[in-house]
């Protein structure tokens, strides 16, 4: 069955729930959400007003779920949603929304606009209106196992490199380990230092962990494109692997949307609660810190700041852990003026980075981050999401700031300062030391 307008509308009818109805009912057209959206603030174009991006779904709600709307529809007075409109709205919903959730924080009547956009995308993709780049990424995720087309051999190569670098074993498919560590494609392909970083940290903290050859990829393009059906397939792979390896925890890596997909949407996508817990790498590291199992040596001597990945901080609720961890290794850690739950998006979340068509507006939207960094005098911009990291690096380069500011992953920075104990003295390690 192919995608169609009719299928899209039916999807919206199925997706609209009590909160959505309440949100549409409450909207007073005040336009405050526009100020929370970097695509509006950086372009000044009113069409980027978050609530406006939902207009087709609003009409479906009105026509299908309200008394007057149904009456008007029956009498033939209502304006049905058309293909042309979906075509017009597709870039608004996919190119100029990163699901960052800032609008949901400022709406005075309390509308969770991000929650609405997420459902809006369900109908859009079912109607066949999704960007090519995101479609291709989703296709690769389903067919190959990774949006970037990363296959197991590539991971194995990185494992090998990490083992060589650290002199430690990187456990793979180790049944009965406590933690199953996931990675994102970007980490495997671009920021593979993370593998050695966590290997060293977990070894030092005596964390029993493993990677899984059947489920190393944490990202979820299905959720980004807005298809719960495909998102569920991707989550199911992780659930299956975690159950096969009988782990107690699955670690969501430094990737924003992976955390949302796995931690919050996952059980609802696969239709049952997990037999394991999902924990974010920052949460785990912060726990280790609190328990005294994570110790560091020395400090960064340069001024650093933290870019809050939206899905981890604002929409994930992990606000304090990255700060606690940063303070372990940075003496001159400064916050951006708007930080934590009100920090601005890098511009590439929610599938925007996978969508080449969105490149110009995404790069324009980066001006927001540039303004935030202006005058802070930071040498390092720390973050905890490989997608953010990519976007930040690219954005800084575009603005010729890449010489001044270095983008660093938090776990990596911690690993650099990891205090190494004398293994020979303790003589035991949960992480298998290489013979």
């Amino acid at each position, binding site marked *: 069955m192919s995608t169609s307008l009719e299928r899209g509308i039916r999807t919206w009818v199925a997706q609209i*729930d009590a909160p959505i109805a309440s949100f549409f*009912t409450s*909207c007073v057209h005040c*336009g405050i959400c*526009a100020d929370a959206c970097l695509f509006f603030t950086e372009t000044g174009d009113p069409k980027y007003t978050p609530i406006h991006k939902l207009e087709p779904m609003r009409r479906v709600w009105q026509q299908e779920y309200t008394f007057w709307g149904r009456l008007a529809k029956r009498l033939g007075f209502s304006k049905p949603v058309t293909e042309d409109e979906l075509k017009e709205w597709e870039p608004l919903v996919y190119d100029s929304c990163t699901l960052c959730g800032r609008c949901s924080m*400022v709406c005075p009547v*309390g509308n969770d606009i991000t929650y609405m956009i997420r459902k809006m995308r369900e109908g859009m993709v079912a109607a066949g209106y999704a960007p090519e780049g995101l479609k291709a990424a989703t296709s690769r995720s389903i067919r190959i196992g990774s949006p970037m087309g990363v296959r197991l051999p590539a991971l194995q190569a990185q494992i090998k490199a990490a083992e060589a670098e650290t002199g430690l074993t990187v456990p793979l498919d180790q049944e009965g380990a406590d933690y199953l560590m996931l990675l994102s494609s970007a980490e495997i392909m671009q920021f593979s230092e993370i593998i050695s970083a966590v290997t060293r940290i977990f070894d030092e903290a005596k964390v029993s962990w493993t990677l899984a050859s059947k489920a190393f990829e944490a990202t979820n393009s299905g959720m980004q494109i807005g298809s719960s059906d495909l998102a569920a397939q991707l989550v199911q792979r992780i659930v299956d692997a975690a159950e096969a390896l009988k782990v107690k925890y699955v670690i969501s890596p430094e990737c924003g949307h992976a955390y949302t997909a796995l931690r919050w949407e996952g059980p609802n996508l696969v239709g049952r*609660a997990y037999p394991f817990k999902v924990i974010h790498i920052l949460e785990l590291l912060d726990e280790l810190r609190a328990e005294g199992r994570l110790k560091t040596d020395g400090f960064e001597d340069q001024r650093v700041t933290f870019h809050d990945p939206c899905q981890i901080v604002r929409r994930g609720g992990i606000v304090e852990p990255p700060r606690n961890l940063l303070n372990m290794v940075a003496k001159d850690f400064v916050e951006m003026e708007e930080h934590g739950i009100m920090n601005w998006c890098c511009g590439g979340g929610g599938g925007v980075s996978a969508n080449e068509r969105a490149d110009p507006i995404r790069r324009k939207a980066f001006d927001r981050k540039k303004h935030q960094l202006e005058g802070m005098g930071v040498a390092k911009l720390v973050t905890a999401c490989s997608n953010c990291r990519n976007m930040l690096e690219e954005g800084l380069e575009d603005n010729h700031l890449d010489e001044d500011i270095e983008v660093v992953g938090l776990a990596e920075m911690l690993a650099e300062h990891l205090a190494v104990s004398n293994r020979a003295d303790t003589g035991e390690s949960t992480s298998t030391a290489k013979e």
Partner: protein
Amino acid sequence: MTETEFLNWVRGPGMQIALAVFIVGMVYRVLENYLIGRKQSLAEPRGSEWTHGVGTMWRRSFTRAKLTTRGYVTLVAGYIFHIAFLVTLFFLAQHVEMFRSLLGFGWPALPPLLITITAVLGIAALLALLAHRLTDPVKRMLSDYQDYLTWFLTFFPLITGFLLINRVGIPYKTLLATHILSFELLLIAIPFTKLSHIITTFISRWYNGAIAGVKGVQS
């Protein structure tokens, strides 16, 4: 219809009709939305849905973000309007008497001079908001006829009320009847327009807070 019949009608049957429409309409609207239902999240909760939902009902009255100029215009005028309108509605002695006749109890009123000030502030804020709606590209794009209709329906009782307590040439009886009628029109319009946000806002805020609460996220 004479002036007296007009006044007697708005004080009696008119108010009954308006209240009936308001109550039927709002109960209906809330249920129409609520009964669509929603899925309970299967994810292991990190926080409380209920307490966070209730907290957000109040907390969302204050903004967290830095806004642009256009946002601050809306914010400041919006605050002034809402506070001024509510104070005027609930604390003018004459209004307290109306509520007493509806609810069976009353509360202390504020001095008329203060209410005159709040009425003027409310009127000024509404005018500013209308001007802003007409000039701000975002609001102009979002607005449909309802936004202007509800603006007028809100402005009408404020301006007639202001004229009423500040002796003007228009006969008091006609003005009083018109003022009461304007309030009744506002009541009637609430369930049919975005004005229903006077109630659904708190439901929306609850949902927003509840969705965040489960995740242990601030909202």
